């Protein structure tokens, strides 16, 4: 249980979240909030999230879908007068919330990000066709067909332009040293989880 304006949650963020130790350095100028391209879609802009962390609003922060609005454009990072790596803190918070299972259900960016990672982790390189289909079908088969139909012209155009290969569905690009690649990722994950005391 985090108490209001006590440091419990801030400390948790500092320990568990990528670049979380920067949160305390925010001076609430709000330049990040105003710089974000998807700003209007943030229920809580970054600077407010930082204040909420300091105010101990753990649930509200981790259950928020705000961090998932980050497009990784780095506008906030280059403008922040305190040089906070805001993009990474947002990524870190999202990742942490996701690991805890607190992030909102069916958050589309979360789903996409998961698909993306799993996709690349499988072969070492992204299979764009499977990734696209994965997005279309994330909400079930029927919705998937609908989505795919809607984007059909785009897909065909890409195929025609030789920028999408239907054959990718059956294999496609990947690293050769799959065993080494998988072992490496597994190890990295292990080390990080151990450091952060994740089960």
């Amino acid at each position, binding site marked *: 249980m985090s108490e209001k304006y006590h440091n419990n949650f801030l400390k948790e963020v500092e320990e568990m979240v990528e670049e979380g130790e920067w949160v305390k350095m925010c001076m609430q100028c709000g330049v990040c909030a105003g710089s974000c391209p998807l700003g209007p879609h943030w229920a809580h802009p970054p600077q407010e999230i930082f204040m909420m962390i300091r105010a101990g609003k753990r649930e509200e922060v981790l259950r928020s879908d705000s961090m998932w609005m980050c497009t990784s454009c780095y506008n906030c990072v280059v403008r922040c007068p305190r040089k906070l790596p805001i993009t990474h803190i947002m*990524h870190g918070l999202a990742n942490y919330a996701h690991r805890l299972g607190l992030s909102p259900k069916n958050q589309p960016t979360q789903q996409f*990000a998961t698909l993306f990672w799993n996709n*690349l982790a499988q072969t070492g390189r992204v299979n764009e066709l499977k990734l696209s289909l994965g997005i279309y079908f994330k909400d079930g088969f029927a919705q998937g067909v609908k989505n795919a139909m809607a984007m059909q012209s785009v897909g065909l155009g890409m195929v025609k332009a030789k920028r999408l290969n239907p054959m990718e569905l059956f294999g496609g690009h990947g690293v050769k040293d799959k065993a080494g690649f998988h072992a490496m990722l597994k190890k990295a994950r292990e080390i990080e989880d151990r450091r952060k005391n994740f089960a």
Partner: protein
Amino acid sequence: MAKKTYSFYPGCSSQTKASSDNYLKSTNSMCKYLDIELKEIPDWNCCGASIGYAEGGELPRITLSARNMALSEQHNPGMDLVATCAACWLSTRESKERLAHSSQTLAEANTALNEAGLTYKGNQAARHMAEVLVEDFGFDELKKGVKNPLQGIKFAGYVGCQTNRPFGLAGESFENPVYLDNLIEAMGGEAVPYDQKVTCCGGALAFSEPEKSQKQIKDIIESAYDHGAEMIVTPCPLCQANVEIYQGEVNKRFGTKFNIPVMYYSQLITIAYGGTAQEAALDGQLVRATKLEEIAKK
């Protein structure tokens, strides 16, 4: 100028029949004209891109880039690592900085790399192809190879985010970088000033949150149109894809009638250097760049 050799990291989208197949092809052509040899990093892997954060976490992401850099160091020693994809470059360079900054991260990454029999040393620079052009050649030098100047064509140089922030090219401004404009002008084209040069295209959220991010794409194209641009030029595969592919969607959503080609600088250079439409992979455009095709026919 003497031949230049770089360790090349093409990235997932710049593979045969991947979404920026045309970027790869035109880059290869451009390099041929510039006497650049690109030695592909053997068995490179995905950089994780920015969007990898949710599932990937910090160390796995850094390790992805560390593997590429380790492979590059091992197989292409003494060269700079060069990426064409903005996200690949950014991930690589960011990882490089983190590895340099924290000995703990370095040790951890190497422990993981060890599983694949690799070690990261950190002795190569991680650069974007645009840096190579601007810094190793320079605009005057680049100008020399122009055979078919792109005269009379107005381009909107769309720099976007990740070649520009947080690192950017040395000496450039975040709000108004000019290297792309200078490149366009060097090729004989006209770079129109417009106010969405560094606006985010929505990045990966173009896929996950189309209704939110298409406003971005609309603003970019609209401003380019309004300022007289006939084509958009970009250094980033995701920018290219988002701005080109979603024009139809944007038109539907906003009632616009956009139909503007979105090109890579490498295509412009190839054409200006006298390359063919095929060399420049102009057939890879969803919206055809007819004016460039005409020049290529000359």
